[in-house]
């Protein structure tokens, strides 16, 4: 097999791995924001999920228990956000900031209390994590030129949660654009008064949107600590929740473009370390630190409207006030 081909497969494989949590978080943000609730608390839910997954997997030895704990922790924060923003019509940005800081503090405090390990969890063994799944015929087909290695290297051999991430995109699309629930949810994000006047309670819809966001962030959290990684490290979400938020805007709140944005950001993240020490003609050594913040710069440029426009759902961030 040619060297370039192998390199390319490795880069794409890395992209899929790095993009997976972004995709899950971005889909979470998409569902929440389509219902009208701004979610800058993706980061916090991701972090809380990651910690809960690692802690539960350590204590029980089962990745499934870890996954359940991750979902529960993330959903709990999502419900806090919902309680503040939907029930009490609080400022959504403020609530999101609170969720992020709360997660930052709680994970370390609880980690110390449980494991006395400097805010980390002990390293997890292979059976306590979600390990790579070899898809049927991967080894058999490996020798088929091009497509065989593509299948064996890129499509096969990921853990369950990577597949879940890629599956979440069509699922979210289907849910939002092909079901009754989705129609109502999107209407709640555009014109909640219309939903209310159609006799459908807006709060319940938005709570469900926030809840789904919690579940998806929970999956992403579990991916970080018990699938991609082998244990919780403090602040291990490292801005991925915000990067997903950038991808959500970059993809203009639409599932497929958001997926592409996540893949693009994942690709940049994969390529950046490989550029360490590479000299570009004219530019000189590649400033890797600057390459890794390229997604943020691109999002700002998009937001500035110099190419295209990112139009958010019209009622995004606006609490629905129903007079009594």
């Amino acid at each position, binding site marked *: 097999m040619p060297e370039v081909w192998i390199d390319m497969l490795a880069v794409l494989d890395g992209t899929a791995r790095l993009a997976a949590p972004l995709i899950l978080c971005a889909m979470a943000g998409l569902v929440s924001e389509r219902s009208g609730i701004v979610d800058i608390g993706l980061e916090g839910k991701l972090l809380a999920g990651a910690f809960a997954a690692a802690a539960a997997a350590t204590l029980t030895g089962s990745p499934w228990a870890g996954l359940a704990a991750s979902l529960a922790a993330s959903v709990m924060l999502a419900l806090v956000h919902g309680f503040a923003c939907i029930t009490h019509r609080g400022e959504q940005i403020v609530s999101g900031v609170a969720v992020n800081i709360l997660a930052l503090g709680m994970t370390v405090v609880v980690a110390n209390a449980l494991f006395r390990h400097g805010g980390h969890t002990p390293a997890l063994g292979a059976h306590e994590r979600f390990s790579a799944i070899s898809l049927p015929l991967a080894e058999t087909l490996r020798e088929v030129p091009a497509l065989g290695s593509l299948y064996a290297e890129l499509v096969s051999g990921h853990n369950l949660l990577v597949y879940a991430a890629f599956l979440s995109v069509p699922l979210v699309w289907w849910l939002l654009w*092909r*079901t*009754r*629930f*989705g*129609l*109502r949810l*999107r*209407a709640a994000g*555009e*014109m909640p*008064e*219309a*939903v*209310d*006047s*159609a*006799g*459908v*309670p807006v709060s319940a819809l938005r709570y469900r949107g926030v809840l789904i966001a919690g579940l998806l962030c929970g999956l992403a959290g579990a991916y970080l600590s018990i699938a991609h990684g082998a244990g919780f490290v403090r602040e291990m979400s490292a801005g991925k929740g915000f990067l997903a938020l950038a991808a959500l805007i970059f993809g203009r709140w639409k599932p497929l473009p958001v997926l592409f944005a996540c893949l693009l950001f994942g690709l940049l993240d994969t390529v950046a370390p490989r550029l360490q020490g590479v000299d570009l003609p004219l530019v000189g050594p590649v400033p890797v630190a600057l390459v890794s913040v390229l997604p943020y710069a691109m999002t700002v440029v998009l937001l500035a409207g110099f190419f295209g426009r990112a139009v958010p759902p*019209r009622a995004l961030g606006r609490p629905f006030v*129903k*007079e*009594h």
Partner: protein
Amino acid sequence: MALDGGPEQAGHPAVRLRGVTKRFGAVLANDDVDLDIPQGAIHGIIGENGAGKSTLASIIYGLYAPDRGSMEIDGEAAPVRSPADAIARGVGMVHQHFMLVPTFTVLENIMLGMEGGFLLGQGEADIRARLASLSRQHGLEVDPDALVDDLPVGLRQRVEILRALFRGARILILDEPTGVLTPDETDQLFTILRGIRDAGGTVVLITHKLREVMAVCGTVSVMRHGRMVGRRETAETNTAELAELMVGRTVGQAERPAQSVVGTPVLRGAGLTWRSPGGTLRLREVGLELRAGEILAVAGVSGNGQSELLDLLSGLSGVQEGHVEFAGRRIDAAHPATPAEMRALGLAHVPEDRQRRGLVLPFEARENAVLGRPEKAGPGPWTSAAAMQAHAEPLFARFDIRPPDPKLPAAGFSGGNQQKIVLAREFDTVPAVLLLGQPTRGVDIGTVETIHAEVLALKERGSAILLVSTELDEILALADRIMVMNGGRVAGTVPAAGATARQLGLMMTGAGDGAAA
């Protein structure tokens, strides 16, 4: 054809309210209201702005819960706690502000809440077919796949009506449905409403326009200050009696002031064409001339360019094509003027929406009294509470603003007194030009007279006044000349003396022709 199915027939009224009371903070919006709406008829609920009509409609539709009182629908006790309850009992509503999702298609808007299955695909074909037959049956043609955002206002209203009928509404409430319609569209709407009635439906028409009630309703209930003050058969009453019930005393035809000496032109606009940020043409080659000591009124169905004209002249939106000449300055696309510059040139502006624009509601009244008048707020770059108080006190006295405490936040004043704060501020300097938008909207009748008197006094002192109002009566009472706008164009300008509501109405639809005055 008789306009009505007759007086109350045997059987139950479609809607019966007893003792309905609703309070918002200090305001008693509905005070012990009793109401019977007959089956199979078009019933009008009429009253001035702020009389409590919309609140009553919202209670029937379950948007507001009444504090007290009971409701029956078709003779059954019907505690309606939500729109879902109302819909289930066959009540539908066409809101003053359309309850449509602008980014959805007509079909999606109709489906919302009645999708016919968990998957949208399950019910769509059926809904499409039923929608088509409903459209045909009631003459409400509209493309089901059009985006609501792309539809003109008249068509959006059709979608609202269709949406209510689609939900099986037998009792259809329309809240001020004609405010955004041309007279022609209004006639079409009334034809549709009569059709619904003839098919056995009940229609409740909420409006403040007497003509409409007389044209289409069989019976009418009159509201004033939150109370139900009368009920009449339209066949047995006339507009004068209804007007009297509405305002609570005899309404004389306003005395037309003698034509004052008209001064020199102070503001000229020519060839003003303006597009909204969305690209819609809102003003087409508008030209006008304001003269000192004269009131030029702009008449028209709201949404025909009047608001855009005010924004343009006040500097709030930039001139795109054409130009404005004012106080020796020529303002065009290349030489824009900001609102602050226009004010400095001697322009004052009473905006149409006083709550969002004319006042900063949480600010104290004295802070609001210097809004747009920073030089009154204190020396140099500083503000001083004493300076603002000193400025506000005489204004409060002159306009009799109550309560007479400039330290209260503006939000704490009634609608009429809020308007007085705005007027007092803008009238203070005897401006060269005054832009006056809907000066008496939502203001109680007593205050209306004060406001009209002050406007006329200002004119006597030489201000050139541009009055924008949707109330023809107000225009006929105040104006010297009347400029009619239709579709962003000046349909004509006529002297007020001798102008009739009928003539103006024709011009508003683009049918009439006015001579330049």
